[in-house]
């Protein structure tokens, strides 16, 4: 038996884990950005210049904390939920092309794989919220279920329009098909995808599942230490992967223009621009109410996504793209 392919996939998987963990520096970046948006400096004390080591200090603190399990919690659900939250966040990176050949496994069902894997997050919200046996957690879990359900539909529909243009479900083929970035051909589809993706990420203005002014911390109220850090890390991993998917589906992924930079650099530039935009949105807009959230999803995004599919069909029919 030839062990090389197996070893190679293990190395690639480890590289992905390293990449995801390296994104923990985004926690510091976000705190600095939030500071700037609010006319203050953000973390300054740990590490020079500009408190760059703050995240590491926080991580050591979280690691050394006691692993508290509430007495009335349903123990297994409570303990497993952070892992169930982190796993899909990692799995998504499997199909994202960082460069023409820099992809762990270019599945020919890439787009469906992404939506299938991300749908697991409902389970983790439910497990943590219900397992904590705390009324705020349960409310957070229910809100998360309603929200993810409503925004999954426009998200998948706007991805379908991209697949229609590219004629393939593989992300690498989608990148190769974009001699014109798809955002030019379907701006509506991109807007729908962006809003739905931010909602799926559970970030402000759509962070109703952990709305701290109403629900303490929602589904992760009872978590502390490393288990809480897993929720936090998976939020950042998901933010980066959502940005990477946006860059891949609508902005030509690793394709460059004008400057002759390596494809990986192009991909990372595009991805982190979206990460910044998502942070920008978070620190600018106030949180929506639950009724506004559901109305936006079902009454605006869903029709717009369907319109976008019709428009894409028209494009294909008239211009033979």
């Amino acid at each position, binding site marked *: 038996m030839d062990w090389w392919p197996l070893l190679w996939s293990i190395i690639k998987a480890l590289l992905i884990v390293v990449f995801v963990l390296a994104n923990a520096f985004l926690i510091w970046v976000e705190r600095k950005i939030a500071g700037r948006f609010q006319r203050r400096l953000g973390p300054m004390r740990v590490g020079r210049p500009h408190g760059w080591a703050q995240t590491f200090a926080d991580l050591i603190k979280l690691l050394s904390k006691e692993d508290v399990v509430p007495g009335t919690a*349903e123990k297994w659900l409570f303990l497993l939920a952070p892992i169930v939250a982190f796993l899909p966040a990692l799995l998504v990176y499997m199909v994202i092309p960082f460069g023409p050949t820099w992809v762990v496994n270019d*599945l020919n069902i890439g787009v469906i*794989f992404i939506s299938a894997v991300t749908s697991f997050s*409902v*389970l983790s919200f439910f*497990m943590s919220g*219900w397992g904590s046996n705390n009324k705020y957690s*349960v409310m957070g879990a229910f809100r998360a279920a309603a929200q*993810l359900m409503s925004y999954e539909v426009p998200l998948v529909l706007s991805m379908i329009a991209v697949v229609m243009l590219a004629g393939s*479900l593989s992300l690498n083929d989608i990148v190769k098909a974009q001699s014109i970035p798809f955002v030019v051909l379907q701006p509506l589809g991109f807007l729908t995808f962006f809003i739905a993706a931010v909602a799926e990420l559970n970030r402000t203005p759509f962070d109703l599942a952990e709305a701290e002014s109403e629900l303490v911390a929602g589904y992760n109220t009872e978590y502390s230490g490393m288990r809480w850090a897993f929720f936090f890390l998976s939020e950042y991993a998901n933010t980066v992967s959502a940005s990477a998917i946006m860059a891949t589906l609508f902005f030509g992924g690793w394709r460059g223009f004008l400057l002759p930079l390596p494809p990986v650099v192009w991909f990372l530039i595009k991805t982190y621009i979206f990460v910044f935009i998502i942070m920008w949105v978070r620190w600018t807009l106030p949180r929506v109410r639950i009724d506004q959230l559901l109305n936006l999803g079902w009454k605006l995004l869903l029709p717009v996504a369907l319109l976008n599919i019709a428009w894409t069909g028209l494009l294909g029919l008239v211009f033979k793209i």
Partner: protein
Amino acid sequence: MNLQLLAFMILSLVTLGAAFKVITARFITHAALYLALSFVGVAGLFLLLNADFLAAVQLLVYVGAITTMLIFAVMLSQVEEIRQGAAEEGFWRRILSARFGVIPLAVAAALAGVILYLYRFANWKAVPVAPDPNTTRSIGQAMFTTYLIPFEVASLVLLVAMIGAIVLTMKKEDRSR
């Protein structure tokens, strides 16, 4: 033992074990989560059969949507009632009771007998079909050519069910407005 057989055995053990726990779990929420685990196992079995599209759809529809529907059902119930769970009963007691145990057991045994009989004596095609490199394309083509009418009928039925659900949950005072 080859790797595929090992994977098959693990996956089918997970699927069957989870399915068993779905019925015997004391809390409906645990049953829902075991159901999700069982679906994941089935998706793994699809992958072993080279049906990657089916596996992804299995995850998307069953784990993503059906389990969420169960969470909605929990959401619409009294939380305290669900937290109490079903009355605690011993395993054998439940198996031997007429209402929970004997009749379902007999039905399940009969079904298993039929399946085993079919497996042993039915006339199966001896040659397995070669794995399709692009199952998505073939499924799409089959759906929009050979099976177009059943496909459309199914979507119409779903649409009717959806509209029906909306009409049923509409409040009276909304209509009088």
